[in-house]
């Protein structure tokens, strides 16, 4: 250790935007840059700034199946953003710093395993790419991702839904009141990975008090039980009371205290669209907290605007937490029951809307509940939209440490789909061989 405790990858991508007035635009981290440079944070001995590297297409294809391919769906900015997350992670893995924060854009937590376009400002999932990179090159196994963005991290959930080694915890504004609409308690992972997805949908108007109640009574104990090799914070900052896209009431102090308690090894920026009134303060608070410095003076000038939590919300949150505590305690029993009930295969069908690209996708996902490994997965997907047209694909995914039976069946499934010819594209993704083949 060089005495540096926080590695910071700061990459505002000042030359990239979805559109000039889109919330995810060039100046999204402008005021944050102003604040952290003005504070002198980059001169502090406890903070070391890193220049992001460019991720490779293969790093993205370790996670995603792009239709027709991921390279044609992304820009260089996406590879820098994913590369920034990897740079942050490697600074921690090499023990150059205690923790790291990738303050990068564009974000990624709405990007699912199959990618047809951009949804929720995300095209590739930068945390998932980082996690699979760490598994590939650093032999990590048990990973916990805590998604603190106000929007449900549906992409990350999708990618790890069948993986019992990845604990995905997301608290967010209730999907009944906010994009993307998912993230209910009952979405707990497929039977073989039941309870490795923990969704905590919070009522609009939740404040620091509500957030920390959830953290202290549910998130931290669950992490304690799971015993991850590494904790990753999907650090969305749109729970802030001034965020224009959501309705929560968390402050910079609330976020900084969260960062202090969570002790994430790596944080990766996700959302946060109050670019002037929240991001400069929230980011400064998180940076100071992660670096082990005093953040008590980071207070928004308009803090008086922040509403108080209603009693009804306080009661609702307490009930929600109790419900989850009970589920968590019964998780082994629940998983056995779910596996027994499902039989050999578990299947789900759903529609996915790409709000940025205007694409509607129908997806069928089938996972083999294998007694010897995590089970292979097949996905059949059809997507259409104007002027996008129609595209379809079939993919089989062979998980890490797959058993020979799953491996063979996955190959057979793709060959069969190819022969039937109902899909435009067929893929096989092999996690052990680290390949994505277009069949």
């Amino acid at each position, binding site marked *: 250790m060089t005495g540096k405790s926080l590695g910071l990858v700061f*990459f505002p991508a000042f030359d990239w935007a979805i559109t000039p*007035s889109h919330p995810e635009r060039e100046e999204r981290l402008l005021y944050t840059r102003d604040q952290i440079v*003005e*504070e002198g944070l980059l001169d*502090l001995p406890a903070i070391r700034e890193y*220049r992001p590297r460019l991720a490779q297409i293969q790093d993205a294809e370790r996670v995603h199946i792009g239709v027709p391919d991921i390279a044609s769906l992304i820009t260089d900015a996406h590879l820098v953003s994913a590369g920034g997350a990897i740079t942050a992670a490697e600074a921690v893995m090499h023990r150059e710093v205690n923790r790291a924060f990738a303050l990068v854009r564009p974000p990624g937590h709405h990007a699912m395993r199959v990618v047809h376009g951009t949804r929720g400002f995300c095209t590739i999932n930068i945390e998932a790419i980082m996690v699979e990179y760490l598994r590939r090159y650093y032999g990590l196994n048990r990973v916990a991702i805590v998604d603190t963005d106000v929007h449900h991290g549906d992409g990350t959930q999708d990618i790890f839904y069948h993986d019992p080694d990845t604990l995905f915890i997301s608290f967010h504004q209730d999907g009944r009141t906010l994009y993307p609409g998912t993230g209910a308690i009952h979405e707990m992972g497929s039977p073989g990975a039941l309870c490795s997805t923990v969704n905590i949908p919070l009522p609009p108007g939740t404040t620091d008090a509500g957030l920390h109640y959830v953290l202290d009574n549910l998130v931290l104990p669950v992490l304690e039980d799971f015993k991850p090799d590494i904790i990753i914070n999907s650090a969305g900052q749109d729970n802030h009371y001034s965020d224009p896209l959501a309705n929560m009431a968390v402050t910079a102090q609330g976020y900084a205290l969260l960062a202090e308690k969570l002790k994430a090894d790596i944080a990766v920026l996700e959302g946060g669209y109050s670019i002037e009134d929240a991001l400069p303060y929230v980011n400064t608070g998180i940076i100071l907290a992660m670096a082990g*410095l005093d953040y008590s003076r980071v*207070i928004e*000038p308009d803090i008086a605007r922040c509403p108080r939590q209603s009693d009804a919300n306080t009661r609702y949150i307490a009930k929600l937490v109790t419900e989850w505590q009970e589920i968590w305690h019964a998780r082994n029993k629940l998983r056995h029951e779910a596996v027994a009930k499902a039989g050999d295969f578990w299947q789900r069908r759903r529609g996915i809307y790409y709000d940025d690209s205007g694409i509607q996708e129908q997806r069928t996902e089938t996972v083999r509940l294998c007694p010897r490994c995590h089970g292979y997965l097949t996905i059949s997907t059809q997507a259409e939209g104007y002027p996008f047209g129609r595209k379809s694909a079939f993919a089989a995914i062979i998980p890490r440490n797959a058993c020979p039976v799953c491996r063979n069946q996955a190959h057979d499934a793709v060959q069969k789909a190819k022969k039937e010819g109902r899909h435009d594209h067929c893929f096989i993704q092999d996690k052990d061989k680290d390949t994505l083949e277009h069949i």
Partner: protein
Amino acid sequence: MLLGIDVGGTFTDAVVIRNGKILASAKTPTTHYELLNGIITAIDKVLAKINLREVKRVALSTTIVTNALVEGKIDKVALLLLPGPGLNLAGLTPAQPYFLSGYTDHRGREQAAPVKDEVVAVCREIKDCKAVAVAGKFAVRNPAQEQVVAGWAGECLKPAHITLGAELSGALNYLRRVNSAYYNSAVWRIFTNFAVAIEAALAERGVAAPVYILKADGGTLPLAAAKARPVEAIFTGPAASVLGIMALAAPEGPAVSLDIGGTTTDIALWQNGAPLFAPGGARVNGFPTAVRSFWLRSVGVGGDSYVRRENGRIAVGPMRRGPAMANGGPEPAVTDALIVAGLIDYGDVALARQAMTKVAATGQTPEDAAWEALRTAADIVCQAIRDMLAEQAAMPVYKVEDIVYGEKFIPKLVIGVGGAALGLAPLVAEQMELPWQVPPGHMVANAVGAASARQTTEITLRADTAQGFYTVPELGIKRDIDRRRFTLDDAWAAADNHLAERAAAGGLTEATCHSERLYEEEFNVIRGFNTIGKIITCKLQLKPGVLTQVTAQEVGQ
């Protein structure tokens, strides 16, 4: 005719330059405790055969500020801060600050007003302070609060000097501006006294030319202006040598320069004919400041570096045990190795051989020992160069195109100046597999640099069309603009005008206005989904550089 004086750690050098030629040079020992004496002696020596009336310009690179800081001969400063919300500065500044209410946000909007009663109460507490420094967070976006507080402190304390942070630097970085403002006030008195004495001494000798002080960024300031910003006169020695290289060697392509002195080698990286600047600014006594300076790395390898055998291998520096044995010193030094290796012809060869015999391994000839020592010395310098190049490659950038298309800095030339340059620079170049150059006059490069340095100054203009104003913090300006019509071009035009004004106000009268655009940035301000204005930032400077290229026939002693 230009007179340049460089006060070094060991020697004070003076040169007179006419039409790009070194006309005279002089070297006298530096008189650390009475700096002025050595300077005057050097001036008298170098001007002995010169018509004083022909001297048009005197430029001085002096250690007065650096020494005052190192020796702690600085004044007590009342450090008044308007920190607003953010980092807790307690323990991060060189002196205990007084925290005041009042806060300007990142767009230059006043979020809380300063309170006069607080300032009055603080002033009562610090009655004995003759120097004050005031710094407000985001004062570079709106200097009004700093000015108001300075006004109140002036009324209450009647101090000899008040420094405003935003006037020292227009760049964001509050911590650095706080530290700069503090040091500026702390060295103000000692520098002012020195400046007055220099002026008097020159006047006594009949030198009527204007006097300039070299800055850490290689520019010069008229003495009068330097009195207001003395902190900029730190670390001028290395800056002088860099300017000397510019005058003597004029490197165009990417290059590495080495100023190889008695105890250290100062390394600088060059691009497009100018050395790279330290990101953020110089460090003073370990504190980061906003003082612009060249990006230099100093390693403990020079002609006098101690050479010995440690655990079977030859070790060089970083300490010095006096001069080389060939020059009457007590222990082997790099210079002894250079003599034995036949790279320089200087000093007592027999004593140098004795020195190398002393460090030779069993069965090793003195020549082989000398070469081993020189390779070791070159290794240390090369490693430092590689570290700098790696740091340069890792320098953060904030645009996608800079990551994808950014070009790597690869030096194409090694330039050496200073006493041991002819011996060591070629060895370093050989290891880096690069060509090398040691220009004539390299022994007095620092004084040449001081003599020929041009004035520099920098301004930052930031317009916020949504709010309808722009600020130029270095000039303490905040001015209204047309919200709908003001463009980036208007911003540059205004910046050009203000730079010219600043140059004139600072007495920068020479016709050397090589202004250069350092940086521009333009962002939309959006409310809902509508663009309601733009934030425009322009940075403009009078480029550091030399008034004239200098050629030297032979090395002046």
